[in-house]
């Protein structure tokens, strides 16, 4: 007996709509089983993980802050992934964006430089991310090198450059030899939306990115071309869409947004450069992009859900003494369920009795 996946003739629209909801429910159910197996109450876990943060203004605000870089990066990644191009190196583009943007902050440190500083930082951050992403794009378009490997490897290069800078030329001379830059001036720090809160204007940029991406993806020729390139590359070639050009554009978009996220995180949250400025946002954003099914609004939602798992996970450690690994496990379960539900909408699972398919039979 074996299991076969058969493509459905016409996937049901209702099923497609309900799939993420069911996936979420299934993930919570499975998560509950894991919690129970660890000897804790799943209901209490649900309360601490989800209900309490969602009913607490502070936690909601923290959720938005945490989701900001994830959403920015994931929206950019969705362009690549839609075109079947695999930019795995958003983490590196994030770091390079932070470095490039910070040059302005550090150059104007201690001066009376005015309101132009922040826009310049954001612009340079975006351009830096773009430039970093254009390397794998170029190698792919020109030589057919796998962008998966090159973009990933450039992550480590970026991290080491940052490491070198904060240890060497950019180290705070008054910082006891600790590897970190000076703390940015007021003029180089993103303004906050609320008093005493941590909600910086970066979240507005993430929202703008979502809306713009939605319009571009669904209502422009470019968006259409992207979908065709991804879903039917041959058709795209026949209709004269240039593949190298698409490659460059989608890498520029995703690199730019990752770079923007980097400088936003540094100027909004951290306030200085350190050897490590990201707890892996660039990688987590890949999950966010797929959780949101590559739809900008879906990504917004997915980013918030992902942020919720982090914040709820911390609360669960404090009140229920559930380990951090559970948060990671749950994130994995969530992704698994969403992808699984999507597969089930598109394919029918059939149990086939008797002899295995011929090819498989020979292999066995």
């Amino acid at each position, binding site marked *: 007996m074996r299991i076969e996946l058969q493509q459905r003739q016409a996937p049901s629209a209702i099923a497609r709509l309900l799939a993420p909801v069911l996936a979420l429910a299934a993930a919570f159910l499975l998560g509950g*089983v894991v919690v*129970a*197996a660890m*000897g*804790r*109450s*799943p*209901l*209490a876990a649900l309360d601490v993980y989800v209900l309490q943060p969602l009913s607490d203004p*502070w936690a909601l605000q*923290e959720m938005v*802050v*945490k989701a900001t870089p994830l959403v920015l990066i994931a929206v950019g990644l969705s362009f690549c992934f839609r075109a079947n191009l695999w930019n795995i190196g958003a983490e590196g583009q994030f770091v390079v964006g932070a470095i490039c943007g910070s040059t302005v902050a550090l150059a104007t440190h201690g001066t009376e430089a005015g309101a132009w500083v922040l826009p310049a930082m954001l612009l340079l951050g975006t351009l830096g991310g773009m430039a970093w992403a254009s390397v794998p794009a170029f190698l792919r378009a020109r030589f057919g090198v796998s962008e998966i490997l090159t973009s990933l490897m450039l992550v480590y290069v970026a991290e080491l450059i940052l*490491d070198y800078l904060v*240890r*060497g030329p950019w*180290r705070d001379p008054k910082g*006891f*030899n*600790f*590897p970190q830059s000076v*703390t940015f001036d007021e003029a180089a720090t993103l303004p906050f939306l609320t008093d*005493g809160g*941590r909600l910086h204007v970066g979240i507005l940029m993430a929202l703008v990115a979502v809306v713009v991406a939605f319009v571009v993806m669904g209502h422009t020729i470019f968006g259409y071309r992207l979908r065709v390139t991804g879903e039917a590359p041959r058709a795209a070639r026949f209709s004269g869409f240039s593949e190298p050009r698409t490659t460059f554009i989608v890498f520029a978009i995703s690199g730019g947004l990752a770079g923007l996220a980097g400088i936003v995180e540094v100027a909004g*949250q*951290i*306030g*200085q450069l*350190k*050897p*490590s*400025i*990201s*707890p892996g946002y660039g990688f987590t954003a890949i999950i966010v992009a797929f959780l949101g099914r590559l739809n900008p609004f879906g990504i917004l939602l997915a980013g918030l859900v992902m942020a919720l798992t982090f*914040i709820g996970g*911390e*609360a669960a*450690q*404090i*009140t229920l*003494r559930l*380990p*951090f*690994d559970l948060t990671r496990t749950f994130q994995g379960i969530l992704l698994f369920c969403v992808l699984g539900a999507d597969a089930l909408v598109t394919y029918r699972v059939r149990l086939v009795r008797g002899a295995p398919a011929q090819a498989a039979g020979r292999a066995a």
Partner: protein
Amino acid sequence: MKRLFTHLLATAALALVAGSASAQDKLKVGFIYVGPVGDHGWSYQHDVGRKAIEEALGDKVETSYVESVPEADSERAIEQLARTGHKLIFTTSFGFMEPTLKVARKYPDVKFEHATGIKRADNVSTYAAKFHEGRYVIGQIAAKMSKTGVIGYVGAYPIPEVVSGINAYFLGAQSVRPDIKIKVVWANSWYDPGKEADAAKALLDQGVDVMAQHTDSPAPLQAAEARGLFGFGQASDMIRFAPKTQLTAIVDNWNDYYVARTKAVLDGTWKSEDTWGGLDSGMVKMAPYTNMPDDVKKMAEETEEAIRTGKLNPFKCPVLKQDGSEVECQGGTALSDEQVLGMNFYVKGIEDKLPQ
């Protein structure tokens, strides 16, 4: 399966009851760890201290922790502890410094304790241990045990806390074997067993036959064990990870300090201060000396005793920099605490360049 579900129902019911009945007058003490409690080194040892508080003060306290908190994203986790009623919060890595101070400003009635930090506030104390005292002891052991005359060191980051450890280690080694050589590799992480092991292997490939490390996992020690060489445990007694290899370990003993500070909050006598304890206060302890000949063991014990009683200071003057110039002796007969805490140079004899 059936048991699972009965358990599930029972705990659900229990949690609902317990949620409302938890005593309000208990002092809640929170911890932020940079690694997982299962790192069996740095974070593990802080967690041992947390458990010591529970053991010593029983039902007067309630403790909780958040593990694997990235330094760049720690403010939220610290604040989460502060706003859930924790009145004493230990943040146990250098990188938590700015976030700790930020949260402390927002919660003036909460007491904070920042490990290995250099900035204090009215409600922020700092504390650290004089690990370098233990380093001097293991440096002597390493020099005695090494056949190749080359000893190795895996460092996390080139910050003063780590650099002073390397210097003390080397000075100890030099004191018994003037021609000893040291090689240093930076892991650029506090906790990354893969990287730590790679760094250790790189050193072992270069002829190093005694391994020391200032990172958080037993990986470098295990790498030495795999080659049948020697090494030291760090932060915690790691003998069970390398029974044939560990010579001793520098054990961070936070228990007494944590219990004392918690008591101080309970009594209302807590105030912001800086604590730097060494072998004499018991904050630094040496694990049993194993896998070495008796004469080496005797030497180590004598050195440990001399440091404990203040007869020997690892940084006794004159201390020479790499270029042979003498470091100004600000502490009378030895370097001052400030000089050790801000150390950013290698001592003479280390043939390597400190990343600057």
